[in-house]
């Protein structure tokens, strides 16, 4: 019983990062209609940049994180301007494949600059974990969970309560109507890419404290897809619940059945969700116009 509870807790805490990643992707998808398959690589790049600034250039951690976020925001802007904007209005396969080839490109850049080694962030936390009634809350997981939730809440607030958030939500409803109401849709597109890149960089840095920085981080990043589809592609609240649920289920399956189940469970969930409820739990039903 205690073991099950332990798996649930650590899965739940891991799920926090999934939720934040899922939110970045959902925001991007809602306003631009593009699903970013380069999610893992963008995370990895953020973590590598932060590592370079913090460890190699010995800048303080807070400064290097801020510089990382600025760098990744610029990267998002460049991606949107150079690659995504010429492809607006192209068929679906193009939109899918261009982000996939982007992931190739970023992998190449990362292996070229940082090589294939695993780098580690320095320990910033006390190693003795918090324990509550026999259940252990590892410090790094706890910190990453609260950081992720704080960012999630901040972004959710901005999305719901500010003018920029309103513009993004209007664009999500309809590009044309938003344009007619005087919203600069191109700006919103750029902003969504910047936001997505920044969120993924945050996630990369958070996750790197636990997983180390290597190509594996990019692989782990792909596990966010089930979380997104579980909650529904167009739902920010669904991203939160999807992330936490997938994190919990994968931890349970990995702990109770076999370690390799941890890798597969998210995708099995993905298949089941796609077959039973293609729109996700909170997504809108797609209506097709003939």
């Amino acid at each position, binding site marked *: 019983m205690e073991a099950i509870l332990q798996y649930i807790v650590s899965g739940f805490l891991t799920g926090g990062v999934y939720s934040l990643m899922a939110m970045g992707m959902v925001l991007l998808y809602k306003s631009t209609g593009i699903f970013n398959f380069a999610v893992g690589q963008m995370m990895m790049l953020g973590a590598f940049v932060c590592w370079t600034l913090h460890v190699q250039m010995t800048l303080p951690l807070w400064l290097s994180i801020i510089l990382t976020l600025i760098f990744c925001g610029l990267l998002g802007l460049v991606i949107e301007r150079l690659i995504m904007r010429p492809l607006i209005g192209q068929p679906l396969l193009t939109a*899918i494949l261009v982000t*996939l080839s982007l992931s190739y490109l970023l992998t190449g*850049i990362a*292996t*070229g600059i940082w090589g294939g080694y695993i780098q580690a962030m320095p320990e910033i936390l006390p190693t003795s974990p918090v324990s509550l009634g026999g259940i252990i809350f590892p410090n790094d997981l706890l910190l990453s969970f609260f950081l992720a939730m704080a960012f999630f809440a901040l972004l959710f607030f901005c999305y719901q309560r500010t003018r920029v958030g309103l513009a993004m939500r209007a664009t999500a409803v309809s590009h044309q109507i938003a344009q007619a109401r005087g919203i600069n849709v191109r700006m919103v597109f750029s902003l969504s890419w910047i936001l997505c890149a920044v969120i993924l960089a945050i996630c990369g840095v958070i996750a790197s404290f636990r997983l180390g920085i290597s190509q594996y981080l990019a692989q782990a990043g792909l596990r966010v897809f089930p979380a997104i589809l579980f909650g529904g592609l167009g739902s920010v609240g669904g991203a939160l619940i999807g992330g936490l649920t997938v994190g919990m289920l994968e931890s349970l399956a990995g702990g109770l059945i076999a370690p*390799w189940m941890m890798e*597969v469970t998210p*995708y099995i969930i993905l298949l089941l969700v796609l077959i039973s409820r293609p729109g996700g739990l909170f997504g809108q039903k797609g209506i097709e116009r003939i």
Partner: protein
Amino acid sequence: MALNRPCGYYDESYGQDMAIVRTRLQWVILIGGLVLLFALPIFASGRILSVLNAIAITLIAVHGINILTGYCGQISLGQSAFVAVGAYITGILTSKLGFSFWACLTCSALGAGLVGLIFGLPSVRIKGFYLAMSTLAAQFIIPVVIANPLSGITGGWDSLVVKPIEIGGVVFRTQASMFYIIIPLAVLMTFFAKNLVRTGTGRAFIAIRDNELAAEVQGINVFAYKLLAFFICSVYAGVAGCLTAYWIKALNPTNFTLMNSIWYVGMMIVGGMGSTAGAVFGVVFLRTLEEITKISSSYLATIFVTWGPFLQGGLSPIVYGLVITLFLIFEPRGIAHWWEIFKASYRLTPFAY
């Protein structure tokens, strides 16, 4: 197509009207090309033959994905996983049970076809982006399943050694001898792919791609044809997998990654979607590019020593990513489109159009 027929040839029978090879020049090029191809091992080095073998195996897998995505419009990002299924079926049957080459080939094709059918089932309810996700799930599930629960028969993360092909006492071990197994199969599969899309089945695929509802109203059983497309695609993957197993001789789940699947779709895009010739162009172009970058990156690394690690580790993914992206932005119709332009202008010379 019909508008672009060669000048001065008039069809007098249905047979002539349907022929793929219609002029004397085309016959000469076809037969000459095939003879030259099969004579190649006499004067080409082992390295060139190995590249050609790789091209032919990849070509088979790309033909499959071209039928599924290019003609039927169903996006698949899991081709490499189905290749893995075919490869492991061959590996197990040949090394553990001692099956012959032909039996392995059949079992691989059918086995991969069935697995593809299972992962094609979600296409009843979902399409487009969601279908891409479900095939992506196949890409993540299958290699892990091969490596872990099935490790008793597949060898897990350790390599599974595959015995060489043996037909009638002759052992096919060298690149040159493999060449005579792989290339005829690739030619045959290309021929089949080319003809498939000219039949009623192929036309049904195209109708589904262009407008699913309209196809259904026309009386096409959309679901059955989608599943058939998935089956054919995976059969191609299975054949490619069987040949891969014999060709690389030691199988490992890490040989079949998401990157390979993207690579297959990228080859189809660069060559030109929905064109059999395009698949050939795409595979030949990107595989040749791969060889060139491999050679040039190690060469450049010796010149620019400070940039050495960057060039050796990162150059090839950067080049592939850039090539695919540039094609998507500037020539989404692919190399096949250039080929069509060339053919048209050759036929119409000296007139402009």
